C-alpha cells in the first residue's frame, strides 16, 4: 500500500501531510486537519453532509481520496466566517431558521455558497435543483430555500427586496 505526501490548501492555508492512498478526503479534513465542521452522514455519496468545495465546485468528500486533492484548494464550512463576521450564507441560515439539528447544514451551506458564487440571482427552482444532492431530514427544505434566497439578496446588496412573509417569519423566530 502506497503512502503519499500531499499538499492541500484548505480555507486559504497550505497543509502538507503524509497520507495512505486509501485515506478518504473527509477523513483527512476531519481527522488529520481536525476540521470537524464537515460531517459524515451516509458515507455512500448520497446525503451530501460531507460536501466541501474543490476549486470552487462542490464535491462529496466521502467519495474522493485525499491524495486526489493534492495541489488543489479546498473550502470547508470553517472557511465561511471571516474576521468574526458570518458569511451571508451563514447569516441567511440563522435569519431564516434554515437548520434544526444542524447535521446537514455545513454541506448545505457549502453547496449554497458555490451556487451563489456562480449565479447571484437563482430562481427557487435553481436553488432546489442545486441542493438536490444534500439531504435534510428535519428542518425541511422550505426554510433552507428561504435562507439561500436571503443570502442571495444580501450578496447582491438588495436584502430590502425580501418578501414580506420572510420578514414576518423573522419576527416570529426572534420573538
Amino acid at each position, binding site marked *: 500500500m*502506497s503512502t503519499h505526501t500531499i499538499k492541500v490548501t484548505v480555507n486559504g492555508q497550505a497543509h502538507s501531510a503524509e497520507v495512505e492512498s486509501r485515506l478518504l478526503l473527509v477523513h483527512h479534513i476531519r481527522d488529520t486537519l481536525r476540521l470537524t465542521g464537515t460531517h459524515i452522514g451516509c458515507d455512500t455519496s448520497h446525503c451530501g453532509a460531507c460536501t466541501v468545495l474543490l476549486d470552487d465546485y462542490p464535491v462529496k468528500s466521502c467519495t474522493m481520496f485525499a491524495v486526489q486533492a493534492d495541489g488543489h484548494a479546498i473550502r470547508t464550512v470553517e472557511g465561511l466566517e471571516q474576521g468574526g463576521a458570518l458569511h451571508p450564507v451563514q447569516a441567511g441560515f440563522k435569519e431564516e431558521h434554515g437548520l434544526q439539528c444542524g447535521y446537514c447544514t455545513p454541506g448545505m451551506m457549502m453547496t449554497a455558497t458555490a451556487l451563489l458564487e456562480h449565479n447571484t440571482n437563482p430562481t427557487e427552482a435553481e436553488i432546489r435543483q442545486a441542493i438536490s444532492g444534500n439531504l435534510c431530514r428535519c428542518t425541511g427544505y422550505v426554510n433552507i430555500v428561504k435562507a439561500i434566497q436571503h443570502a442571495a439578496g444580501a450578496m447582491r446588496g438588495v436584502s430590502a427586496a425580501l418578501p414580506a412573509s420572510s420578514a414576518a417569519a423573522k419576527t416570529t423566530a426572534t420573538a
Partner: protein
Amino acid sequence: MIPSRFDYVAPSTLDDAVTLLREHGGEAKVLSGGQSLIPMLKLRLASPTVLVDINRIPGLDYVEERDGALHIGALAREAELERSQVVRSRYPLLADTAHVIADPIVRNSATICGNVAHGDPGNDHPATMIALGAKFVIRGASGTRTVAARDFFVGLFTTVLEPDEIVTEIVIPSPPPRSGGAYQKLERKVGDFATAAVAAQLTLDASGPCQRAGIALTNVGATPIRAASAEAYLVGKPLDATTIGEAATMAASAAEPVADRRGSEEYKRDLVRVLAARALQTAARRARGETGTREG
C-alpha cells in the same frame, strides 16, 4: 467505510497509464471521476491492488463539436454537459441524460466516459450513446481502436474493454437538420438508478416522415438494450400518436426486466412502453423545432 489497501499511481500521460494497466493485469482499476468506483471500493465490492488515477493527465476534459461530431474526452465531467451551450442546443438527448444522473454534486466529479466504461446497466449514458450512434475510442497498451456503442456492452458490468484499455473519447455524429432527441427516466428519488429509462433520437425527412430512429433502454436487462425493431418500424412513417404508440409497444417487447424492489417485471415492461412514447413524442417535437432545449 474504508476501502481495502491499494497502491495509487497518477501517470501524466495516457501511454504511461495503459503501460501501468498492462503491468498490473486485471489487478488494477482506472480512477477517473470515482463516483461509481469509490463507493464500490468502500463497500468492498471491488478490491483492486492498484488504482491508476488518470485525473493528472492533461488535455482530456474537452466537450467540443468539430469535424461533424461531438467529441467528449475521458475527463469531461457530467456537469460540463449541462453547462455546454452546444450540447444544450444541438444534443438535447445528451443534456436530458446528464441532468438526471445522480445529483448535481456528484455530476461535478463524475465523468461521461466513466459512466459508459463501468458497464453498469443502471447507468444512463449507455442507452443514450446507443441511440445517438456514438463510437468509443479505446486506448490500450498495444494501440487504439474504435468500437460502436451498440457493440460495447457485453453483459452485467462487462464490456469489450481489456484490462489494459481506457475509453479515451466518445464521438457522437452531429445530428443532421430536423433531428431531435429526448431521455425519459423514472427514478424513485434524486440520485437513484432508473426503474426504467428510454433514450430516443429521431431525424425527420424534409417532407415529415421519420428518416432515422435510435431507441435504447436503461436498466431493463443485463446491458442497455437497443430497440432495433421499434427503430426499423418507424423509418419512413409519419410520427403520430398511432405510430409512436406502436413503436413504444415494440420497445417494451425488447425489454428484459427482472423484478426487484423497484418493481415487478410486468410493471417495468409497461413503464418502458410509457416512457418510450413520451421520449419519442418529445424527440419528434424537438426534431420539428417546436422545442429546442431540455424541458423542465
